[in-house]
């Protein structure tokens, strides 16, 4: 029994409504795209959706700012985004911080780090 999942293409402002027909993990058909990018997006979004996580963590002793902006070094599995955010919410990072400094090593099951996205001097 095949199922249908819909996606909105993010490739351009046209925003094609992409339809993926699938049986479990197995993709049977993809329709609704106007270009190759749409097809690829639908496939990726269906099988292994990933996002770069950007958020902030509590910063102690930072000059001018109270929050440290951070990101995942690579796109992480969508399902792991809440897990990372939860871990980060309990953290306190001490200034000074360098851009790219690892704030949370191996934040995901596949070992992606969360890093600082700006320098912060001490106050």
């Amino acid at each position, binding site marked *: 029994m095949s199922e249908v999942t819909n996606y909105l293409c993010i490739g351009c402002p046209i925003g094609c409504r992409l339809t993926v027909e699938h049986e479990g993990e197995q993709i049977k058909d993809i329709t609704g795209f106007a270009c190759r990018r749409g097809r690829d997006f639908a496939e990726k979004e269906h099988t292994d959706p990933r996002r770069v996580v950007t958020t902030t963590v509590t910063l102690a002793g930072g000059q001018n700012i109270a929050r440290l902006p951070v990101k995942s070094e690579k796109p992480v599995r*969508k*399902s792991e*985004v*809440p897990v990372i*955010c*939860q871990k980060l*919410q*309990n953290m306190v990072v001490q200034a000074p911080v360098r851009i790219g400094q690892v704030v949370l090593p191996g934040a995901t099951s596949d070992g992606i780090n969360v890093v600082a996205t700006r320098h912060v001097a001490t106050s």
Partner: protein
Amino acid sequence: MAVIGGGVVGCAILRELSRYRLRLVLLEKEAEVGFGTSKSNSGIIHAGHHGAAGTLKGRLEWEGNQMWDQLAAELGFGFRRCGELTVALRPEDLPVLQQLKEQGEARGVPGLAFWDKETIRREEPNLHPAIEVALYAPTSGVVNPYEACFTLAQNAAMNGAELLLEHEVVSITKVEDRDVDGNGDTGNGPLFVIRARRQGGEGEAERVRVREVVARYVVNAAGTAVAQVAAMAGAALPPIIWRKGEEYLLDKRLVGIVKRTIFPCPTPTSKGILVIPTCDGTIMVGPTAHETRHSDDRATTFDGFSEVFAFVQKLVPAISPRDCIAQFAGLRTVAEGEDFIIETAPIGRFVQVAGIQSPGLTAAPAIARMVASLLEDEGLRLTEKDDFRPTLPPPVRFGQLSPEEQAALAAAHPEYRCIVCRCENVTEGEIVAAIKAGARTLDGLKFRTRAGMGRCQGGFCTTRCMELLSRELGIPMTAITKRGGGSWIVTGRPVPVGDQGAEGEMSSANHMRM
């Protein structure tokens, strides 16, 4: 001696009475003075010819009008005699203008003159071309009403008056004298015990939150709540209604589009929708005049907005809603018969000031004198202080100085080298001075310094103003409010999960759709 209500009338009374050897207290329910109707006032000092002969309004408008120059000189608030022009839009307006002129002249208002088409075009070229006749009144002016309130109260406080802000009067009881002063003097008749609830003290025990003020004389200048306060004291007033006025403030870009306040011909209930060149260079249009049943109805409406801009087109066609940078509304308190009520209640020593609609702002200094004299009639001894200080140091308005003056000020005082509000060029020095002068809220800062009043409406300076309030008052950012009460601006972040030992509370990220 207690004054209830810190609008412009209450503040003017307080300041007038602070000339004398009295123990004075002001009770105001809002976080700062002038935060009720006065803050939303059109800010016009009427020329003196509007009120009909034989009315209190008429007499006090002209008396009050003549007192503003000295007040402004002493207290330093924004005031300018820009003159006004009442225009005829229809032939039937002409007799009304004629009557206004005669009634003003009978009262001694100087300079009233009819302008013809040529004069109108030359002096006010942006008026609608169909306007061919107008009555000019040079004695009219504009004032920043909130600045008037702040400085009147500040000056009164400097002269010994006590300001109890966020104190809402909840009961007034007349009791036989007891020895309030502790000097054994009980022979002065009855006393009023006023109970006021302190706002913003939620969570405290009731007895901490209620303050008792004992006064021999009381002035009820409670504005929209005047009837409520009157009833508490058993000094009922005739029916009071509220008439809402919506105002719209336009970008400074339009500075100079009119030089004088432009009035349409008045109707029995309203002076109409006006075009007002404010003291600060902005243009204000409004107000509407519609009865409302709620004493705290300060909402602006789609209908009011449409009404104002549609009407203003008839006066100054170049004004467009696109230039609107702020909108607000205030309530006029209207007594039966439309005149002011200023009288001593039959219970004695209790003076009521009610129904102070337009021209209440203009009349306020004259009302204050009249109230003082009513109190004197009731037995209050008015002995002038030897050390009354009538003036406040003039405030710095960095944005209004010449480049040379700005340079000199910045060279001498580092606190004027840091701009906080970029739309109005307000410096840190001005913000700090305003806090020292009594500002406790973001609106208090805005109305004292103009920080946040310009075209970005605080988008950029809000955080800086909050930081300065926090630093100067020693309060956390989360305790800062827009205008007192529950008008908080930010909350803290949720406590991390580990600290509170509960799960699920924290992570809204859990809501992420998979």
